[in-house]
């Protein structure tokens, strides 16, 4: 069973690679922020997984939870930054497809 968990961890690491592509290439800053957010949630999973492998999950869930909480704050701060530096779009001016036609 432990081997399976290590394998699952390696699979998660391997699946982080395409997200890293988005971080390296990502045309705009906000693409990178999205990728960072995704990596953050995956790190939460990896922390619990490491706890299971160490057989001490009760110690590891605490900071997996911290991690989830603070990752949320980080991406919220980035969103707020973009909110502030860009002029506010009026809600009613954004056109949907039906309104155009």
């Amino acid at each position: 069973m432990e081997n399976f968990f290590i394998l699952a961890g390696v699979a998660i690491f391997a699946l982080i690679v395409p997200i890293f592509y988005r971080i390296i290439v990502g045309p705009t800053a906000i693409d990178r922020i999205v990728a960072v957010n995704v990596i953050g949630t995956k790190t939460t999973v990896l922390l619990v997984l490491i706890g299971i492998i160490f057989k001490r999950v009760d110690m590891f869930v605490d900071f997996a939870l911290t991690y989830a909480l603070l990752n949320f704050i980080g991406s919220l701060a980035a969103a707020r930054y973009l909110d502030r530096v860009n002029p506010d779009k009026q809600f009613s001016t954004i056109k949907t497809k039906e309104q155009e036609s």
Partner: protein
Amino acid sequence: MYRLCIFLFLFGIWIVFSGQFDSFHITLGVLSSAFITAISSSFLFENRSKGIGVRLHELIRVPIYMVWMLYQILLSNIHILRLALTPGDLPEVEPSLVRIKTNLKTDFGKWILANSITLTPGTITIDIEGDELLIHSISKITTAGVEDDTMERKIARVFEKGE
């Protein structure tokens, strides 16, 4: 009354966190819950005029709603998986913005609706103002599905019975 409820709720969460049942840690838990209740009890419940019966009704209905929501999340993931793994030039992707109206009154109901829309297949709430929601939809099928108001009625049944 509400303060007592918040205290008990926080203490329940503390028990889940703590896992130590000796008197020293229980005392610490009571102190901490009381402290948090004192400094930030105004955050948890927005509308304090509802009676206990309505709250109990909500408490029973929420798990049913969450199970349904979970099923919707599963569907949405299968949808994303299908879209992502279709070979070729992403034939099904056709993004568009949609605007819908909601009949929900309370802010909390609107919050639940917005988050549920984000979690259901192919749609994300971009903005919410008054009773209008701006939604980004990823493909034609989901654009058609937005108009369906099953979810809204479900939410109204759970959270806005007393209104």
